[in-house]
Each structure stands twice: as C-alpha cells, then as structure tokens.
C-alpha cells in the first residue's frame, strides 16, 4: 500500500486522553442532534464517564516521558499532573453543575460539550512546548470559556462577565501572538527551544528580539494566569459568571496556563538576566496587590479571585527561584497546583450549593449561618480554607513547605520570606470567610442550600484530594517521579 | 514594437498585465447589452409574448438628400438589440437623485464595489489556450481568488442597504448578507471537491485535467468534471449557489419587489442603479464562465477529435467555445428565472444549510475517499468504493427523510420567527384533513 502523506509518528497511547475528551464532546452533541428534547442527563453521564476514562488513560502514562507527532505533543511531569488535575476538576464541575444550573434555570445541554473541549484545550497547553500548539490549546480553552461565562443568558451579570472576559482575553491573545512572532523572527522556531538557543544566534544580535518576545509572551500568559498588572478581568468575571463555570475557571482552566508558564520559564535559563527581574516583580506585585484588594472585599467570589492572583504570585516567585538556583522543579510545582486546585474546587463546590436562585454575586453576608444549618459543610469549608491559608495537615501547607524549603536550599531565602509574609497576611481575609460561616444567621435570611448525592461525591473528591495528598505524600511522590 | 522590448522587464510585465486586464474586461463588459436583450427576448418567448423587438430598426428615407443613395429606402432590422443601449443612455442622462440623510460616501461606494467585484471576478478564468493573453493572472491559487472576490460582493448590497436610510433597503441588505454567507460555504466546498479532483487550485490546470479521455476509456469524449459522479453533484450544488450568489430569481430575496419594494437598491436611481444592474449581469456571465471552466472543460471542444485539437489552443477559437458555454449558462439562468417561483426566506435558509451544505460536505468526503482508493488500489476499486459510498448515503438519506416525514406534522399554516422580531406565539395548526 502506498502512502499519500508523510505522516509524523503517531503514538496513539499518548494521544488517547485527548481523543477521548474530544469525542466525548462530539458524542454529547450527537445525542443532542438525535434527540433535541433530551434533557441533559444523558449528556452529563456521557461527559462524566468520558472524563473518567480519559483520567484512567492519563494515569497509565505516568512515569515516562513521551513525544508524539513530531515535537507537537510532549508529556513530561508537571504537565501530566496538570492534565490529571484538569480532568478531575472537569468531573467535579460536571457533578455539581446539575443542581446549580437547574436552580438558576440556565440548564443548557451545550454546557457539557463546551466544558469538555475547554478541558481539552487546557490539556493541550499542558503537553506541548511548541508555541503553536500552546496557542491553539489556549484559544480552545479561552473560547469555550467565553461562551461558558455567558451561560446564563438572562443574567446581566453573566453576560457582562462574558463580554469583559472576551474582550480582555482576545486583547491578551494579541500580545501573546506578537511575542510568538518575535520569537519566530529571532530563532526561526516556533518551539520554546527557540529561547534556549538564544545566544547561539548571536551572529546578528537578536537578543532584543528575544527579550521583547519573552516580555510579550509574559503579558499574554500573565493575562490568562491573572498576574497583577494584567489582572483586571479576574474579579469581575469571577463575580459575574455562573458559579459552576467559575469553579472550572479558577481550577482546571488555570492549570493549563500555569503549566505553560512553567514550560516557558524552564525554557529561558539563558535569558535569566532579564527574565528573573520580570518574574520577581510580577510575582511580588501579584501577591501584594491581590492581598490588599482582597482585604476590603465583601464578595466571596471576588475574594477567591484575588486569592487566585496571590497563588499565581507564589508559583511565579518559585519559578523565579528555580531560574536562579538549582532545585527540583517539576514535582513541587505540580504538588502546589494540586493543593491549590483541590482547595479552590472545594470552596467553589460549597459556594455552588449555597448560591441563590438569581445568579447574583455571593456576598459574605450570605454565608452567615452556614455552621448552624449544616455543620458538616462548614467543617469542610474550614478544611479547604485552611489549605488555602496553609495551616494544618492539608495539601496547601505541605505545598508551601516544599516551596519554602526549595527556595531556601537554592539560597533565595528572601523570596521565601516574601512568600511567607504574604501568606500570613492572606490568612486575615480567609478567616473572614470562616468568621462569616460561623456567625449566627440574620433574621429572615435563612441560608438556602441543597445537598444532593452529586455534590456529596464532589465534596468527597475534594476532601480526599486536600487531605489524602498529605497522607499519601510519599506514595504519590514515588508514583509520579519514579519508574 | 522595438521600443517595447527596450523597456525594463518590470515595466514590460506591468504593461503586459495591463494589456491582459483590458483584454479580459472587454469580454465581460461588452456583452452586457446583449445579455440583457437576450434575457428579455428569451423570457418573453418562454412566457409567450414578444418582448423588445423594435428598437434599432431603421428605415432610411426614400427621398431625403441627406442619406447616401445606396441606403435610400433600405430597412435594417436589429431585432430590438438597441433597446438595452437606449435604456442605458436614458439611465445615464437622467437627473441624479440622492435622498436626504443618506450616508453619502457609502451610498456612492456601494455600486462601485459591485462593479469592482463583477469585473475582477473573472481575472483567473482562462478564456483560451493562449497563455500570453489569458487569463489575466494565472496564479496558483486561482480558485480561491474566485471565492475571495465573490465573497466581497456582499459588501455592495449590505452597504447599499445600510446607507440608504430606508427600512426596506436595510432589510434587503441584511437578507443579502445572510444569503451570501450561507451559500458561499456550500459553493466553496463544492469547488473544493473539484480542486481535489484536479489536484490544483490553478485554473489552467483544472482545465487541462479535463482534457483526458472520459473515465480513461472513452477516447472521443473529454473527461469533463460534470461527467464524473462527484463532479455532477458538485455541479448541481455550485449551480444553485451561483444563482443565489448573484441574487437572481428564484433567490432574489434581497430585492423581492412584493416584499421589500426593491430591496437594497430601493433608493437608487440613474447611473448608480444602472451600475448595479450592469454588475449583476456581468456577475451572471462570469459565474457562467466559471461554471464552464470548472465543470464543462473550459475552452475545450465537447468532442475530442484529433482534427480539432490544433485549434483548441488558438486564442479566438477558445474564446468562441468559451463564450458559447457561457451563453448556455446564461440560458439556464434565464430558464430558471422563468420557471421557479421565489423561495420563502426560511426555505432559502433550509436549502442552503440543510441540503446543499451537507450534500457538498458528503460529496467532498466521498471525493477524498475516491481519490485515496484510486491512488492506492487503482481506478476500478475507486469506482466501486465511490459508488458504494454514494449508494449507502442515498439509502441513509432516504431513511432519514422517510422517518422525518412520518414524525413531522403537516401544517396548514405556519409562521417564521425572524431574528429580533417581536416575540410571537407559534400558531401552528396541524392539519388533520391533509392525508397522503
């Protein structure tokens, strides 16, 4: 048999999670096509099972490094942890979506395929160091999320959030692309390796081009990660978009850009003269501004938005340390993401359960009385918030410990001190959430929440993630890094 | 012509390009009066009436001294050919009216865009075998140029509708843009199948690829694309789409006179209206030419006689063959206009999105399979695979249609929900009496 095209080497096993996720979405649409009156139950089931199967096939890949499709797909360590996290948050978000969407009367079956494809975009971002692929994955993620942010078509909040998210996101894409253009111009290469060959090309001095391209790419990625000078969209979008979508936005959708950020930083050691100051400045700004802004907020989702900025700052400062000193990067970074994702997801699961019928922002006021109505839920909230703060036997604490340890080992103690100081400061506004939850409820404002089996499973997953990742720290470590 | 050869090569290129451009515009521009006359005569013949047959008939005076002696008393019949020229003169000498409160710049710009599109649409069509004169630009993306230019045509109608400051015009413009966008997709995909068939986007290559013996066996008939199964389906899709792209009946929704006065050109008069009209006829003619090029073998004779072969590459013979094929296309245009009633808006959209687009896509996929099979297993296998594919798809389609007919209620009346119309309750009354 003659071959018509010189196809690159396929490694179907590596591509399997992508394929499963893509076809899950398409299958959901087909269900809709065959029976337009179908309620979303079938599609939801399909999506959950698709996510779980993809998760299993992803777990099977752990322990090795794979490349497929030339250099387009690359599975290395923090990326694979990221993919798992994305899939878990996909499944959890789908679990909590049904009651929430029904309550806010915006139960559209298109939600599930779009969520699937958003997760697919994030996974593609995690597993490539070709900027073309990262760009395509980023856009797949973002465009799906633009639609999802406007999921509730009757809520002005939701539509406004969608518009803001969309305009600023597209704006950031422009910067990101311009950065890629200069990188291509300087190195003739769309791969991130282009950065690491920067000084080699010094026949004509291309270094300004490299610096510029790094700066522009950081602007683009910074927008998506929510680093501070580019953070304006985050609080508004978090506060306005439907809570279940925000739950994905804050967790699964953040993982992809963070891993891409990690890959970019890992690719630029030769440029650390300019990269380190930029990163340190951005991260300190993110932490300080995020903390200060969060302090005066009354909207819970906005507090979480600012806290996500602070977390981005932690990760970036670790990466800056990574550039300067020699220390293990992949596992600590992955573990921090794990702690962040599970804790945030848990808080959002609780918020989705108590958010009201009218899809308006959730204020601290509306949390009051949670402990009286449902002590269990309040206790779980404590666990998740503690993990965010970084106290106690929870993932957040261990992750921060590893970070601080790594920074000190790399002789970057001042970075560790900045990190610790900020997380101490952050504890205040997290405690405000807890205080609201444990204060007595106001007259006539009984908190409404429901507690279906799906939400229970989702909460269990998050709790296991937050607590279990501490208990089984060393098995996880060996599973991921060994083999 | 020595001075020409002494110029620098760049300027020579520019000059030859300008020469070719003029040569290419004339065959599109010149026939417009004839086309209009032809349409009116043919239409009246089909409707059993006479049509313009007088204008231009000259009977010279028997007695006047002004007339040369050999002409005195002679009659010349032009069969009404001068009618369209007279109309044109009238249009271009009337008082120019521009309504108040129009967007003046856009109002003037709109007909010019229409003219631009109509004139440049044909720039990659080879009118004859002689590559010195034609096509104007033998670029390697010829087919895409056609798609690109034809997609620009939407602006003229849209801008005309917008700038007129008239509700009817606006509706016409909106309809036009929606219609053009919808049909462009199917058109592009239909052409894509033919591009795959020929293996090139270059128009001259597409023409050349149709010069082989039919199916590789029948030596005296050329292998025109329309004779192959996928080409036949593409030709149907493209034919419908090209009528819709030129806003001709039965797809003349943007200018439906009983709904929208005259649609996007309600406020236009005199020369601007004349330009719109000319552009429409030129576009018709060019699309017929494109159809001839892609599906009917371009400038080649319909029969491959060895005696004829040397003449095919001559410029004039090629042009004559091509123009004849174009005239056939025009005839079909007019025939369709005389035959079919105008579609309703929802019918138009359903035809475009639910019939033509899936058909074109399926055809594209089967073409790909066909080519793959032909390359890997040889032509016989390709025929079998292709025909089986078509057969299976036809059965599937018939089954779906059967199922849909069973479940779909038949309506006595129905109302269509337009975009942004005031919310209405669907008053659908299932008709019990109508039983098949």
């Amino acid at each position, binding site marked *: 048999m003659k071959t018509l095209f010189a196809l690159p080497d396929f490694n179907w096993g590596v591509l399997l999670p992508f394929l499963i996720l893509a076809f899950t979405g398409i299958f959901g649409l087909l269900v809709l096509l065959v029976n337009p009156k179908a309620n979303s139950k079938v599609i939801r089931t399909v999506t959950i099972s698709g996510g779980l199967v993809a998760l299993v096939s992803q777990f099977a890949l752990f322990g090795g490094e794979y490349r497929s499709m030339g250099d387009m797909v690359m599975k290395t360590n923090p990326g694979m942890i990221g993919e798992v996290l994305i899939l878990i948050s996909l499944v959890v978000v789908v679990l909590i979506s049904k009651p929430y969407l029904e309550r806010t009367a915006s139960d559209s079956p298109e939600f599930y395929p779009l969520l699937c494809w958003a997760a697919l975009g994030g996974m593609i971002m995690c597993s490539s160091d070709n900027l073309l692929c990262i760009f395509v994955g980023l856009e797949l993620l973002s465009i799906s999320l633009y639609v999802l942010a406007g999921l509730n078509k009757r809520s002005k909040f939701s539509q406004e959030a969608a518009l803001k998210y969309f305009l600023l996101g*597209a704006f950031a894409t422009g910067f990101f692309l311009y950065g890629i253009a200069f990188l*291509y111009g300087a190195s003739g290469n*769309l791969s991130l390796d282009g950065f690491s060959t920067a000084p080699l090309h010094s026949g004509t001095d291309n270094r300004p081009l490299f610096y510029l391209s790094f700066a522009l790419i950081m602007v683009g990625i910074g927008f998506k990660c929510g680093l501070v000078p580019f953070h304006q969209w985050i609080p508004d979008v978090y506060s306005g978009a439907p809570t279940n979508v925000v739950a994905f936005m804050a967790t699964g959708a953040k993982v992809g850009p963070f891993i891409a950020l990690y890959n970019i930083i890992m690719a630029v050691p030769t440029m650390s003269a300019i990269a380190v100051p930029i990163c340190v400045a951005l991260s300190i700004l993110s932490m300080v501004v995020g903390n200060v802004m969060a302090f005066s907020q009354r909207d819970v989702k906005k507090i979480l938005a600012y806290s996500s900025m602070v977390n981005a700052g932690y990760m970036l400062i670790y990466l800056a340390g990574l550039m300067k000193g020699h220390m293990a990067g992949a596992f600590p970074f992955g573990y921090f993401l794990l702690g962040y994702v599970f804790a945030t997801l848990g808080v959002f699961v609780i918020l989705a359960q108590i958010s009201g019928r009218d899809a308006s922002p959730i204020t601290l006021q509306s949390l009051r009385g949670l402990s009286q109505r449902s002590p269990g839920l309040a206790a779980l909230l404590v666990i998740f918030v503690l993990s965010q703060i970084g106290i106690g036997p929870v993932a957040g604490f261990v992750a921060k410990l590893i970070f601080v340890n790594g920074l000190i080992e790399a002789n970057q103690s001042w970075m560790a001190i900045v990190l610790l100081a900020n997380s101490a400061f952050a504890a205040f506004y997290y405690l405000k959430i807890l205080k609201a939850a444990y204060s007595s409820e106001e007259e006539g404002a009984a908190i409404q929440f429901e507690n279906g089996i799906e939400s229970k499973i989702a909460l269990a997953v998050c709790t296991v993630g937050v607590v279990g990742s501490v208990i089984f720290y060393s098995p996880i470590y060996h599973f991921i890094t060994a083999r | 012509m020595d001075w020409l050869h002494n110029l620098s090569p760049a300027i020579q290129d520019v000059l030859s390009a300008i020469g070719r451009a003029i040569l290419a515009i004339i065959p599109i521009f010149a026939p417009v009066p004839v086309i209009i006359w032809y349409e009116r005569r043919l239409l009246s013949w089909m409707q059993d009436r006479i049509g313009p047959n007088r204008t231009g008939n000259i009977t010279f005076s028997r007695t006047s001294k002004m007339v040369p002696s050999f002409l005195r008393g002679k009659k010349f019949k032009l069969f009404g050919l001068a009618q369209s020229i007279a109309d044109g003169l009238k249009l271009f000498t009337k008082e120019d009216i521009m309504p108040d409160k129009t967007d003046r710049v856009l109002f003037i710009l709109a007909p010019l865009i229409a003219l631009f599109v109509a004139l440049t649409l044909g720039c990659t069509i080879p009118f004859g075998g002689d590559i010195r004169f034609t096509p104007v630009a033998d670029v390697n993306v010829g087919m895409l140029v056609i798609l690109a230019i034809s997609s620009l045509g939407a602006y003229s109608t849209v801008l005309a509708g917008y700038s007129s400051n008239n509700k009817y015009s606006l509706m016409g413009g909106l309809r036009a843009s929606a219609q053009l966008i919808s049909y462009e997709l199917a058109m592009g995909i239909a052409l894509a199948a033919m591009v795959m068939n020929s293996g090139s986007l270059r128009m001259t290559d597409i023409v050349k690829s149709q010069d082989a013996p039919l199916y590789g066996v029948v030596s005296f008939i050329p292998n025109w694309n329309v004779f192959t199964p996928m080409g036949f389906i593409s030709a149907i899709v493209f034919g419908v789409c090209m009528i819709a792209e030129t806003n001709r009946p039965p797809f003349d929704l943007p200018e439906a006179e009983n709904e929208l006065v005259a649609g996007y050109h309600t406020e236009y008069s005199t020369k601007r209206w004349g330009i719109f009209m000319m552009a429409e006829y030129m576009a018709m003619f060019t699309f017929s030419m494109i159809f001839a090029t892609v599906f009917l073998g371009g400038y080649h004779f319909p029969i491959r006689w060895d005696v004829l072969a040397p003449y095919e590459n001559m410029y004039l013979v090629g042009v004559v063959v091509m123009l004849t094929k174009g005239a056939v296309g025009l005839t079909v245009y007019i025939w369709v206009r005389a035959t079919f009633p105008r579609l309703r808006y929802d019918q138009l959209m359903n035809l475009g999105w639910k019939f033509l687009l899936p058909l074109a896509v399926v055809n594209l996929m089967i073409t790909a399979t066909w080519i793959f099979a032909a390359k890997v297993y040889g032509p016989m296998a390709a025929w079998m695979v292709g025909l089986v594919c078509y057969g299976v798809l036809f059965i599937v389609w018939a089954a779906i249609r059967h199922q849909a007919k069973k479940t779909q209620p038949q309506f006595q009346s129905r109302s269509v929900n337009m975009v942004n119309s005031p919310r209405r309750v669907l008053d659908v009354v299932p008709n019990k009496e109508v039983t098949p």
Partner: protein
Amino acid sequence: MAYIGLSLFMFSTGVVGVVIRRNPIVIFMCIELMLNAVNLAFLSFARYRYATEGHSLNQAIGGPMMVIFVMAVAAAEVAVGLGIIMAIYRLKEEVDVDELNLLGG
C-alpha cells in the same frame, strides 16, 4: 524591514483603539487589527529571514503555518465574540464598555 515597521504601527494602533474606544464592536475590530499585525510580522519574518538560502524548509514554513492557524482561530473567536455582543445587546439597549459596572470592577 519596512514590513515590520508597518506591523508595529498597526499593532500600536490596535492597542490604542482598544484603550480609547467604548463601543465593544469597535474594540473587537481593533483586536482584529492587532492579530493582522501579528500575521504581517510572521510572514515578513518568514520571507526575509527564513525562506532564503541557509535555512531549512521546516523553519521557513512556521510563519505561514502560524498565519493560517491565527486566521482559523480568529474566525472562531469572531463567531463567539459577536455572539456574546449580540446577547448582551439583547439585555441592554446600549453598551458602553466604560459603563459596564454592574460587577463593580
């Protein structure tokens, strides 16, 4: 390279447009302008630096490839973006980006 100069100019113009205009549709058009500046940069880099002697086809093809992908992405983005703009216009009669302050940001 005058092409890059033009590309820079278009990019900056687009940024200015995004910053100073209020109509979301116009802002979106300015973003498209930025994307086209990117495309121009890619193509001129590919033509002037990598389509020439001493570079592999693999290097040279990156620019046009990226342009094709940017176009496809832009098409999808426009479809979704205009959908969002239509949806918000349904809820509110007039949209001024500066007055979108329900969310207090």
